[in-house]
């Protein structure tokens, strides 16, 4: 019985355990900068898992998801930051925000919920479209939110940064939220709705003929992924202590999509593995950009190489291993007598 449960939870546990070891090591032995890198990667896991819930299960590429991060990040900033400056710099806020400061936990939760409501509202419209038209429309949504938040000066301070958010995000907190995100994603993917949505990904026509509502399944996933993106946005805001609207735009969209594609966008393991691999690579490149000493000589690669390399990695994976490193499979239960891969796929136990 216990074994069965363990087996069923393995696709999540098998990911969480190694992550826990990394966090533990970073926490005990790592320098501050390593610790920050690890925390950042964990926040990225929340983000990419959020993307995965929608993109991975529905097969519809969305370019708009980081908008929901922005919505949550701003929402939590409005509630928690800079009580003295707020009435001046963000005079357009309603009174309950302008002249009050709220504890971080309810602020974070309500911000994530706001993000998922926004996702639901956008989804009501966007999910009516399918295929490329849907993808392009999510891109339009990204631009709409960017334009609005960049110009809504009295509420968002325009393109300027909001500073002075409480920074409470530790590696362990980020780990806990990443775990929560993974559990949410996994429970969704093995649920009937998750199964139905994956069927629409495989064949929209046949799914309709099987009585599945493509629209509602996609909308459900879109909303749920909005929630997880919101969680990521809150973490992001309270990790850096500062937010600005342009952080939540094309660059972040590209990096998170790369992570998802490289890992393999059709499995949770892929989403997580992609973050780990790409974070590791970019971290090394970043350190090389700021200079490393090799046998007494200071060598630095030109700033900006990081992004170029990232794009090349993405292309190579797309060309040579289109289904990503995990090929869209979940990690198999390691202690079984040889079990076919498909048996453990998506927790079909």
């Amino acid at each position, binding site marked *: 019985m216990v074994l069965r449960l363990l087996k069923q939870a393995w696709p999540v546990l098998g990911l969480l355990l190694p992550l826990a070891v990394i966090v533990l090591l970073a926490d005990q032995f790592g320098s501050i900068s390593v610790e920050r890198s690890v925390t950042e990667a964990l926040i990225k896991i929340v983000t990419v898992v959020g993307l995965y819930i929608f993109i991975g299960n529905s097969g*519809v590429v969305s370019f708009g998801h980081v908008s929901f991060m922005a919505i949550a990040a701003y929402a939590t900033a409005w509630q928690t930051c800079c009580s003295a400056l707020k009435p001046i710099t963000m005079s357009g806020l309603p009174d309950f925000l302008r002249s009050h400061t709220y504890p971080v936990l309810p602020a974070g939760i309500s911000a994530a919920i706001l993000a998922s409501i926004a996702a639901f509202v956008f989804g009501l*419209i966007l999910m009516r479209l399918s295929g490329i038209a849907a993808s392009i429309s999510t891109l339009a949504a990204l631009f709409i939110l960017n334009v*609005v938040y960049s110009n809504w000066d009295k509420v968002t301070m325009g393109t300027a940064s909001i500073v002075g958010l409480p920074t409470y995000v530790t590696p362990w907190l980020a780990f806990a939220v990443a775990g929560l995100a993974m559990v949410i994603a996994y429970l969704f993917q093995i649920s009937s709705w998750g199964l139905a949505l994956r069927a629409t990904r495989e064949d929209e026509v046949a799914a309709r003929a099987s009585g599945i509502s493509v629209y509602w399944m996609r909308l459900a996933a879109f909303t749920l992924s909005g929630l997880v993106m919101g969680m990521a946005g809150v973490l992001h805001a309270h990790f850096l202590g500062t937010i600005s609207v342009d952080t939540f735009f094309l660059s972040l969209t*590209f990096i998170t999509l790369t992570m998802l594609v490289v890992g393999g966008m059709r499995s949770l393991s892929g989403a997580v593995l992609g973050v780990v691999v790409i974070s590791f690579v970019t971290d090394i490149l970043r350190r090389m950009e700021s200079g490393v000493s090799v046998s007494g000589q200071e060598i630095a690669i030109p700033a900006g190489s990081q992004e170029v390399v990232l794009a090349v990695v993405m292309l190579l994976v*797309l060309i040579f291993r289109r289904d990503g490193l995990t090929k869209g499979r979940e990690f198999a239960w390691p202690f079984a007598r040889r079990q076919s891969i498909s048996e453990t796929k998506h927790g079909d136990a």
Partner: protein
Amino acid sequence: MLNFIQVLFDAAALGSLYALVALAIGLVFGIMRLINFAQGDYLTIGAYALVVPTASVTPPLLFGALPWPLMVAGVLATCIIVALLTERIAFRPLRNANPATLLISSFAVSYFIQHALMLVHTGRPKSIAMGSSLAQAIDIFGVRIPGVQLVTMTVTVSLLIGFVILLKKTAIGIQMRAAAENFQMARLLGVRANKVIAFGFALSGFLAGIVSLLLVAQTGTLDIKMGIMPVIFAFFATVIGGMGSLAGAALGGFLVGVTSVLLQAYLPPDLRAFRDAGVFALVILVLLVRPKGLIPSSASRERV
């Protein structure tokens, strides 16, 4: 009234510029179901080819120093070569991938080009003195129209006509249209895929070159991100025009440009900053009403 006519000219000029970019995107989409994000970066590269790669904000000229026919040829050649290279290296191996994968790959190519350019030219915007004679306004019946706008419209209209002739009358053009309608069938009928696709990319590079010259002549600045907005607008244009329909793409581009200028002119001043949001919302709206676009191509329908 005069003001209104001036606005109309602005609208037509921007609309025709977007129509060119949209046409390029529509061409490539038609023949290989690829929505090419990198189209914007072809034009950025073309623009940067005018100057010598330095960190300077007012860099010395490269192609920009040549007499203008050579300069135009240089920029066009650069864009065409880059377009062909991306096709050969990145897109050809992915030819059978689904549209979502292709879209992501072109996103990657775009990201690559932008940051590679940034490595050689730095990320700072640059100014470039060019086409000053074009910047002068010409007075027609009391309406002052910048020379650049006239050139833009003339060039676009002649290019559009040229394209129609190319697609309707020449062998390669007919093959391209056949491929856009039904690629598999066209192949069976002996259309050579590599040739047609390469030709499509060459044309899209050519169009990028033209647009980059027109843009630089209008603004006199270079910016790594200068291709993004045109390509985004053109994207939306191709989608609302009807994917795979070239006439639709051109029409969509024109509409998007015109809408954008009209909103800029007639929105109340407080809302003007939100103009682009309005245009994008309009895109979503059009798609809701006509998910297959204004002029759907017959290839876009799936048979059960």
